[in-house]
């Protein structure tokens, strides 16, 4: 066995070249690409970590916002509830007040209505009584419509205060005697006599006719009015009916 030194030298050279070939075409490019991939993966991981951090921060922010919104919602709800309660109370109070007012108004209206109705009824009653009286009076003797009231008239004049009586019947202030129908001369004379007797002096008397008296006499002086007629009586009764019922 012998060693071919030329072959040994060439193979040593070849091994050196092989080192370069493998380094140039295999190990260096593959190691480079592995390193680049590693760097890319690191970058992606860093980015993912950054994104995760950002997401966590965002989540925390969202949580804070949610808490704030929740608190605000609670506050708004409480405010709204309080406001609603106050409004409800105000409405209820208004309603109660309105109801009370309406009830009072209704009561007043009822009373007024009742009074109006009473007045109407009383008016009707008085008209009815007037009508009845008129019809009844139509059946009485004609003279009675005057003569039956002369005594009453004299008595009423006699009850007048002295100072009132003193001014009655002066010539410049004639007494006005109103009757339900035209007085006859005799009746007129009788009335004048009676008045002169009671007043103690002569009087000037003017006569007038007013059928609405129904029956009786009314004496009108400047400071006095003596009403002695059915109309006056009926008016008194009517007033009493209306105001005392």
């Amino acid at each position: 066995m012998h060693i071919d030194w030329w072959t040994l030298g060439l193979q040593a050279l070849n091994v050196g070249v092989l080192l370069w070939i493998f380094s140039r075409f295999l190990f260096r490019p593959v190691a480079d690409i592995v390193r680049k991939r590693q760097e890319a993966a690191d970058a992606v991981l860093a980015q993912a970590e950054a994104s995760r951090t950002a997401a966590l921060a965002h989540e925390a922010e969202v949580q804070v916002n949610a808490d704030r919104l929740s608190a605000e919602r609670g506050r708004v709800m409480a405010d709204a509830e309080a406001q609603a309660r106050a409004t409800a109370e105000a409405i209820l109070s208004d309603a109660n007040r309105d109801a009370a007012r309406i009830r009072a108004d209704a009561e007043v209206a009822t009373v007024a209505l009742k009074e109006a109705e009473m007045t109407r009824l009383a008016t009707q009653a008085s008209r009815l009584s007037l009508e009845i009286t008129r019809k009844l009076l139509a059946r009485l003797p004609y003279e009675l419509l005057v003569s039956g009231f002369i005594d009453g008239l004299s008595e009423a004049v006699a009850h007048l205060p002295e100072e009132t009586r003193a001014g009655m019947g002066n010539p410049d202030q004639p007494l006005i005697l109103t009757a339900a129908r035209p007085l006859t001369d005799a009746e007129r004379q009788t009335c004048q006599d009676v008045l002169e007797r009671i007043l103690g002096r002569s009087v000037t008397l003017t006569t007038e006719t007013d059928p609405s008296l129904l029956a009786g006499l009314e004496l009108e002086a400047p400071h006095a009015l003596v009403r002695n007629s059915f109309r006056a009586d009926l008016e008194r009764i009517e007033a009493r009916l209306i105001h005392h019922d």
Partner: protein
Amino acid sequence: MISSPLSTDVLFHIGPIPVSDPVVVTWGIMAVMTLGLWLATRRLTIKAGPVQAVLEMIVEVIDGQIRESMQVDPAPYRTLIGTLFLFIFIANWSSLIPGVEPPTAHIETDAALAALVGGATLYFGIRVRGLGGYLKTFAEPSWVMIPLNIIEQITRTFSLIVRLFGNVMSGVFVIGIVLSLAGLLVPIPLMALDLLTGAVQAYIFAILATVFLGSAVSGEEGGKPEPQPPQKED
């Protein structure tokens, strides 16, 4: 009839230089590897295709072996160890091509490879530890060991040469003999065994080179037993 595996046939001359069979086969391997690797690695991307994935896996496995054996960053040693493994592997398996004899079946190729390992051990040892530091490792654990350490340096280089040469040459030899006796089908199991031997020897050579480099740069030479992968006795 095959020639003796121990002889080296000169195919032609370039000037005064005789170019022998293993040199030409090695050139062929170099050409094929250059072309193949250039095609495979000219468009590497972040998203690896199948070919790129296989290449990356090979590099990762080599890196892993270096890291495991030397406990250091594999980058400076990747080219050396990877080249040794891949070249020996391809050279051993080149016997599959009819008429091609593996260059590693010739002692000159193995000697060149072992010399490379020896030189690399020296280079990395001095680069990492400095000249003085590297020389001091010969006096460990005591100066008495200096002659033994020097002898060990030489013998282990020779053991690399002889181990690879013996295994590959014997495989070629056996196949040649069997082929001359019974040409059809009979050598196939032996050829398969030869492939297995070739792969194992490539691995052993590379891992031993790693261990030698590791011992040179870590300073534990002599204290660490040399791992001996199971060897085949062909």
